[in-house]
């Protein structure tokens, strides 16, 4: 009994540094943002700090720009994550088959994921450019768009272009995670199924998918959380114009453009909290519905 208590104390001391670091870098800023969201203030020294309770949240849900950004964010998240999962699964299954140069293909597949988003977004922005952008040419030649149409300057096409870039970039990440999951499925299961006479589709739906459930859940959580706070690709490609503004892009306007002009910092903090809560809701839904065990 005594030994056990001693061990617990030692364990606590060993975990303590980690808890301290997490508190400083994660919990403190989170708490501060929550705290700030109940105040009306700006960063300009002559602006007074005023407690407004839930006032910022109330005005947030009356703000049509916020509602539009919320819709855009959810649309972006649902479409891009769905496409990434579908393509990721397909690619993972393909590269899990033995074929010549498989190692090389697996490595090459990761290139889009390895390029920093800021750079790949700028690169795609040029490819979507109306003057000699290769994507513009391509889509023009296919007859999908008319000559001279700026893809990133049109409400009908800009969001889809952004989603395309995100799918291009993050499908490899999905594929890699799912591939790792695929490799954990014991070959005997498939053998047994074949002996029982299961066809390809049955083997996929009865073995592969159920065995991949927790892998896909983790991958979905990662991607969804990332997508809900998407900033870089949108900001670089359209700066949030033509109906592509997402919550994080709107938050930049509040926290940067307006930091010194008025009492917007608390409002921006409230928006940050809403993004945080939105992400938590999605995470909980995934964990519950996919019966994921966290420990």
């Amino acid at each position: 009994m005594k030994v056990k208590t001693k061990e617990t104390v030692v364990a606590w001391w060993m975990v303590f540094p980690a808890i301290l670091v997490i508190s400083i870098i994660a919990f403190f800023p989170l708490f501060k943002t929550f705290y700030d969201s109940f105040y009306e203030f700006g960063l300009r020294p002559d602006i007074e700090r005023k407690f407004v309770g839930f006032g910022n949240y109330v005005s947030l849900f009356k703000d049509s720009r916020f509602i539009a950004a919320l819709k855009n964010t959810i649309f972006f998240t649902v479409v891009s994550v769905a496409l990434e999962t579908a393509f990721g699964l397909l690619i993972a299954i393909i590269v899990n088959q033995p074929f010549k140069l498989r190692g090389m293909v697996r490595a090459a597949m990761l290139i889009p994921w390895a390029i920093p988003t800021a750079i790949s977004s700028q690169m795609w922005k040029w490819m979507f450019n109306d003057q000699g952008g290769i994507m513009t040419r391509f889509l023009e030649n296919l007859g999908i768009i008319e000559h001279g149409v700026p893809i990133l300057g049109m409400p009908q096409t800009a969001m889809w272009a952004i989603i395309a870039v995100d799918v291009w970039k993050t499908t490899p990440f999905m594929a890699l995670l799912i591939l790792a999951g695929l490799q954990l499925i014991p070959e005997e299961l498939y053998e047994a199924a074949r002996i029982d006479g299961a066809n390809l589709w049955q083997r996929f739906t009865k073995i592969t998918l159920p065995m991949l459930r927790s892998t896909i859940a983790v991958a979905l959580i990662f991607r969804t959380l990332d997508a809900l706070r998407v900033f870089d690709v949108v900001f670089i490609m359209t700066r949030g114009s033509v109906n592509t503004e997402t919550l994080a892009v709107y938050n930049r306007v509040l926290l940067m453009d307006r930091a010194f002009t008025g009492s917007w910092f608390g409002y921006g903090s409230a928006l940050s909290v809403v993004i945080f809560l939105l992400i938590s809701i999605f995470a909980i839904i995934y964990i519950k519905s996919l019966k994921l065990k966290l420990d």
Partner: protein
Amino acid sequence: MRKFVFVALLLVLSVVAFSRVTITMTAGAVGKELEVLYAQLDRFMKANPDIKVSVMPMPNSSTERHDLYVTYLASGEKEPTVLMLDVIWPAEFAPYLEDLTADKAYFELDKFLPGTVKAATVGGKIVAVPWFTDAGLLYYRKDLLEKYGFKNPPKTWDELVTIAKTITAKEKNVVGFVWQGARYEGLVCDFMEYLISFGGDVLDDAGNVIVNSPASVKALQFMVDLIYKEKVSPQAVTTYMEEEARRKFQNGEAVFMRNWPYAWSLLNDPKDSKVAGKVGVAPLPAGPSGKSAATLGGWMLGINKNATPEEKAAAKKLVKFLTSYDEQLYKAINAGQNPTMMDVYKNAELKKAAPFMVELYGMFINAAPRPRTAKYSEISDVIQKYAHAALTQQMTAQKAIEEMAKELNKVLGK
């Protein structure tokens, strides 16, 4: 022995290093700006061996520079020591800038264009020194206009449309008119020019929102018509900033371009430009009101309040040097950025290098300022949003102007 020499050398070096004041300054890289600045700083450091200036290059977009400044200044950092400020920022950043009112004589501010000094004055305090000034200009292809029998550049917007249509109907791969229509600060500059030349404005002198007027609707409608009805501007202008427009014009693919003076020296560089020697510059055309308007642009140099006294002293020396007669002349000739000191416009060398600067002097000193208020960023954001919504046909011009007025009133608390 070798060790001793090494240690001694290190010691000498560190003494030398510590006796020098190091200051940082932010700088833009539009066109030849940065190259010219490096040459100027070399001269400055040779004349002042006790000061070391390091440059922090900034993004070209003014909106992104603003974000960086917010981060630096709000954190109370002493760097950057010298800040390059857009003409619209002094009111907003004033609490973080060193008060230079007492140094008015030192910087010889009475020799500067009065409009630029006024823009650097907030609540009676001078917070920055005007570095270069800007005004929107109409660049045109002299060769193409001559070829189709047009002797003069257009005096009115309607004339511009007619000329552009005539030329583009016959010339291949040439569009009529390029300008800045992306959703960013530059759109506000372009929008203000149409607005004022059509007889409208955003705020009156008392700060009341007066944008909701038939003139404003007509002005915005005209911008929309340039793209969709007259088709003289490509639809892609809604994604263009300065450099996109310049590249198109420089490749010989446009008849007219609205841009700032910096484009002049680049367009006339025979190495990179397909239109060198074929370009003319004129004031922007007039609208139905008979007025022509150019938005006042330009940048100033301010000093960070959080810097140490030694750094501030060195910074003042640097600002004085960069805004002196000789350096303004050098910058005007090599980077094509307009001087803020009146006497420089009388210089014969400048007249040879950039004749339009001297010829259009009257226009530069009368350039129209954007709304002057500490809330400028918010106002600009609203104007960008609704003007861009109209340009991309998400809203009619009428509706965009109405919504703009409503939201501006909200921002200004009226």
